């Protein structure tokens, strides 16, 4: 009987719970297979086949905790499974490029947990379908959008939910100046109305 050792580090209980339920289902279909959830310290002599790290709360590479960074360096790429949120496309893209870890999106719709187990045993990298999708889409070269520093300030204020009048007071400019900045931003982003501007502002954190 083969026992698959799984370790989770500071993982959101909901995601971990969901994942173990998937594993349980696999357990029912494969009686000669089992898995074990290792605790943090006690059984240190046993090497986990797969360590799960929760990166859903992070927005950029700098936010990754030092001990997690060390873990990433020590462990072989395929021995680590990072849970990510596909909302933050840029961050996920960075993870794909800079690390060799397996990636699983927590809002995955078609998940075969068997693939994750297989990949980690065969030392392949596992990338879940919706993460893969981001990766493929990002390969389309886009013309970078260059905003001036003033435009960036205005955009930042707009993200914080300020309206034109408030921004004007905050930046000591006239309303017309702010309005013109906003128009230029919209022109550069290629949007025609406030709704699409908001959709874009919510989609990317790095403009």
């Amino acid at each position: 009987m083969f026992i698959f050792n799984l370790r989770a580090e500071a993982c959101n209980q909901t995601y971990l719970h969901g994942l173990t339920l998937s594993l349980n289902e696999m357990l029912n279909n494969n009686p000669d297979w089992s898995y074990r959830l290792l605790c943090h310290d006690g059984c240190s002599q046993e090497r986990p086949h797969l360590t799960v790290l929760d990166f859903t709360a992070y927005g950029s590479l700098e936010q990754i905790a030092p001990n997690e960074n060390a873990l990433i360096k020590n462990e072989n790429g395929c021995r680590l499974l990072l849970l990510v949120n596909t909302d933050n496309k840029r961050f996920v893209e960075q993870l794909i490029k800079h690390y060799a870890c397996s990636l699983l999106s927590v809002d995955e719709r078609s998940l075969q947990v068997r693939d994750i187990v297989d990949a980690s045993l065969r030392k392949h990298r596992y990338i879940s379908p919706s993460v893969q999708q981001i990766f493929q889409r990002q390969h389309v070269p886009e013309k970078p959008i260059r905003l001036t520093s003033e435009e960036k300030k205005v955009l930042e204020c707009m993200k914080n939910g300020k309206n034109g009048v408030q921004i004007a007071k905050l930046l000591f400019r006239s309303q017309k100046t702010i309005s013109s900045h906003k128009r230029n931003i919209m022109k550069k982003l290629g949007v025609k109305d406030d709704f699409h501007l908001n959709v874009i502002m919510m989609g990317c954190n790095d403009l």
Partner: protein
Amino acid sequence: MSQENQTTTVVLFEPRVLFRNIARNHFEEKDYSIVCVSGGFITEEAYSIRSYKPLIAIGVYGVGEELSNTLRLIHYFSNQGYDVVVWVPEEDKLMLRLMFGLGVRHVLAEERLAEELSRLSLHQNGVTTQAPRLAGARNMKMLSTSELNVLLDSARGMSAKQIATSRHNSYKTIFAHIRNACQRLGLESRNQWLELLARIEKINTHYM
């Protein structure tokens, strides 16, 4: 309120595997019979639902391009007095408010789904305390069907003029719907309205 001690049926609509596992596990433990519906099927299922009056459980953030239909159904079934349970990310206050505005009585935080489900007590009159507390607004009212439709059309990027043409209304009527919707959802500024629209749009296009 009489036949509820027999097996309750749950219609579960949650395309995200991890969350679906949790919800299904919870309802299985409670011996509910579960009907899992998948995308596109939700509208069809809605017709047969009326015959057995189940509990409806929906993970709003996972429904993707089915969002508009799903929101309409949530609104409809809540209005008909069904028990509807939804879960959304806790930090999305605007979506929490919208759920409340649709008349949902049980809104859970999806980050702690298992815990929240186990605390859920159905078949009680009135509103579970979570929804208004989480949304940070007390005096909220339910949206009318027209207001919801205008909201969903706006979230598709239609301007008030376009909506007016398609609904055979004056654009002033559309503005009135929008204003009333904002009031009922407790939105204070145009920015919040736009943010809500952008969030709806984001869920809509999440899996595309």
